[in-house]
């Protein structure tokens, strides 16, 4: 029983982390809390579904969905954020703009797809169950875990081991200085939004497969989970988001198993509020969350 | 009256203020001088509570104040102006000053909402007090003009009026003559001396040495965040360390 919960928490946590990485990346680089991030997640899931419905194999649908939601992220920045950034608008304005964009994207999905829950066709992924003593795990769950971890490792390499990553970190540290050092700040920002969107899209397809339920409103609950995760890890903190994803999945899974399924959401929000009140910079955070 | 003991303020690795100790005596005008970047404004921020020292103690009227929030410090009797004028731009001069009178009012929300006589009497009294301050600072012509429509020199005087409106016993001024012409500067000097005559204590940051000589009883000289000299104006001005600090700064700015 316990080990089964651990297994569930691990693959779920991996997807939570994947989703939250893009969320926290944009905050880390630009200081923007992009509340439209969950809408990119939702669009990614729909695009993945459309690809599959069009007869494409899953291994192709996933990257296509990622590219699409990545491009959507870039577009989002150009339309909703860039003007504000150039004007040096207050945080509040950016936050509101992202809320507007998210409403737009959700409504558009309602129109383009359907407000109903859509599902992947049966058998899109081979149903295979492995049993290991008291623990069972499906091939789908193993794949989700493997793919999430692979993407996260790739991201880590991208940010820590490449010139692009170096430039990104420089912009995150201080865009003005970065520009003076000859770093193409605007391109770095576009790449950041592409990455964030792609990560959200990947999480959308994977969780869409796992729960086999895709709807324009699937971003809502995920938004609050994502916020909990990135606050846990410290806004803008990459390692923190991974840690936070697993903390959230473990506390959710364990509270369902040992307390009551009604308390699943409650646990995550209580966690969120406790962290905000007592460690607003997150478990690993440094920057200051309190007012000056 | 105000006592600073071993104050240090670090910004990252840089110590903007290090081990500063000095006192401001009641009823005197103390000058705080030093080259650009010496840490004068930082020190004022520490005293007024907008910033906290990394270490050290600040005592005002024998009470530690270095951990109090700014509004508490103001309520104890310390008011200030800003080097980069920070008036409430769209408000009129009169309104700016009435905001400064916040702590003199008592009327609560309810009595304002119901326009009780007590509220109206208080409003009348505040307006009269504000009008007196406006007159004292020679701002009658602009009382109802938006604050950002005034000239630099006039805005500085509005800032002083707003600070005085809080009824301070210690007034902190950050470069009050910047942007003023010679006549305005001389009049400001007279004002400060007349405030001193009313037993107001003043700590003033200034670059204009004539002005310092006109109003100050004592000066404290800051360089690279440290006190390098203090005492009577003439004595300090002859101090070779001070001359070096200023000449050094001159040379740097010419380089």
């Amino acid at each position, binding site marked *: 029983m316990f080990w089964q919960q651990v297994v569930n928490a691990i693959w779920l946590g991996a997807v939570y982390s994947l989703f939250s990485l893009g969320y926290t990346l944009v905050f880390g680089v630009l200081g923007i809390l992009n509340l439209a991030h969950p809408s990119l997640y939702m669009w990614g899931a729909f695009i993945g579904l459309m690809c599959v419905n069009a007869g494409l194999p899953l291994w192709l649908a996933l990257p296509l969905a990622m590219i699409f939601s990545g491009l959507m992220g870039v577009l989002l920045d150009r339309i909703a954020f860039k003007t504000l950034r150039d004007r040096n608008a207050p945080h509040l304005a950016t936050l509101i703009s992202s809320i507007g964009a998210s409403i737009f994207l959700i409504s558009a999905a*309602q129109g383009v797809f359907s407000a109903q829950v859509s599902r992947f066709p049966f058998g899109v992924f081979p149903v295979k169950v492995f049993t290991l003593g008291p623990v069972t795990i499906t091939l789908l769950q193993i794949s989700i875990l493997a793919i999430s971890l692979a993407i996260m490792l790739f991201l880590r390499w991208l940010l820590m081991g490449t010139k692009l990553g170096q430039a990104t970190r420089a912009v995150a540290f201080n865009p003005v200085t970065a520009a003076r050092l000859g770093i193409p700040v605007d391109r770095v920002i576009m790449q950041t939004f592409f990455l964030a969107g792609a990560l959200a899209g990947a999480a959308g397809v994977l969780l869409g497969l796992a729960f086999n339920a895709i709807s324009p409103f699937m971003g809502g609950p995920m938004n609050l989970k994502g916020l909990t995760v990135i606050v846990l890890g410290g806004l803008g903190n990459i390692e923190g988001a991974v840690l936070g994803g697993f903390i959230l999945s473990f506390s959710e899974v364990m509270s369902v198993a040992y307390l009551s399924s009604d308390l699943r959401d409650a646990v995550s929000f209580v966690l969120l509020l406790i962290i905000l009140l007592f460690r607003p910079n997150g478990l690993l955070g440094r920057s200051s969350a309190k007012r000056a | 009256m105000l006592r600073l003991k071993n104050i240090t303020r670090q910004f990252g690795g840089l110590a903007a203020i290090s081990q500063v100790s000095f006192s401001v005596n009641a009823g005197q005008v103390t000058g705080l001088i030093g080259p650009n970047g010496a840490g004068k404004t930082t020190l004022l921020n520490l005293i007024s509570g907008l910033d906290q020292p990394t270490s050290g103690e600040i005592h005002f009227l024998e009470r530690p104040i270095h951990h109090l929030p700014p509004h508490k410090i103001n309520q104890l009797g310390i008011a200030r102006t800003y080097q980069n004028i920070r008036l409430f731009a769209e408000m009129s001069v009169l309104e700016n000053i009435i905001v400064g009178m916040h702590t003199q009012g008592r009327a609560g929300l309810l009595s*304002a909402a119901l326009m009780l006589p007590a509220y109206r009497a208080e409003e009348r009294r505040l307006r009269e007090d504000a009008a007196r301050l406006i007159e004292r600072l020679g701002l009658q012509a602009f009382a109802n003009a938006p604050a950002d429509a005034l000239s630099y020199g006039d805005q500085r005087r509005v800032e002083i009026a707003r600070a005085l409106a809080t009824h301070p016993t210690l007034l902190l001024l950050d470069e009050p003559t910047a942007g003023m012409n010679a006549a305005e500067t001389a009049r400001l000097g007279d004002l400060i001396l007349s405030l001193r005559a009313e037993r107001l204590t003043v700590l003033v940051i200034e670059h204009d040495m004539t002005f310092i000589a006109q109003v100050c009883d004592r000066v404290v000289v800051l360089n690279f965040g440290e006190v390098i000299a203090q005492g009577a104006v003439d004595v300090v001005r002859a101090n070779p360390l001070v001359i070096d600090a200023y000449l050094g700064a001159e040379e740097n700015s010419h380089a």
Partner: protein
Amino acid sequence: MTVFTQFWSTYGSVVQFALINMLLGISIYFTLYTGLLSLANAGFMAVGAYVSAILTIHAGTPLPISLLAGAFSAGFIGWLLGLPVLRLRDVYLAIATLGFGEIVRITAVNFDKFSGLTLLGGAQGLDGIPKLTTPAGLIFSLILLSFFLIQFHRSRAGRALAAIRRDENVAATMGIDVAGYKLLAFVLGAFVAGLAGGFSAHLTRFVGPNDFTFSAAVNILAFAVLGGTAHWAGPLLGAAILTVLPEALRFMGEYRGIVNGLILVLVILYLPRGLFNPKWLTRRKEAGHAQA
């Protein structure tokens, strides 16, 4: 007269919803005016709705008493929440208040189950609330509130908030207790939101846990953003427009929500002060200045 009755039978409820939304606009005005981005107003609305509905149903209290009880409860919860949460910076405050809305929802869903009472109606919500809300009652409250706002802005507290809005550090060095006044604005906003919740419960005859989630919070925010927050009339205008607009956009069907999102983004980008310009009210005074 027949024209009026015809109009009223078709649009009467829209008008009443517009009036309730205007109350909500005022509720968020208090916080936004003070520079706080709080998304807790939907949660406060829920508190007011549940408390007033329960009183009316179980204690048979007359509407004004139920409404006031709801509003005071919301104000009290606002005080409890505001004390710890208002120390947080912009983005963190937004997240914390979002989390609060979710906690209200979860509490509403689970309260009966865990307390063994039948009060809140769980996930189904409470229905059968007597329809006591009248247009006259709404208009009376709005007029009363407007009068209060006019007086408020002339008062000591109103001036303190105006100073905090412009420069909170300077306000603090003028002896203004910035944290205290922010809490006051937060509590006043909660109170008015609770009042609106009570009216709404007694108009739709129903209170459900899902009426007050993120999207409700965002709608309230949209009133203020569209109308502008420099003057309290701004959110009133915004609320009126955004309530009537969906009626006018019925022909757009599923895509209706797009307009809401688009408005939010466009207003923030191109009309950052909102539609309502306070100068409309003060033109005569300005002319006076010019002569002085």
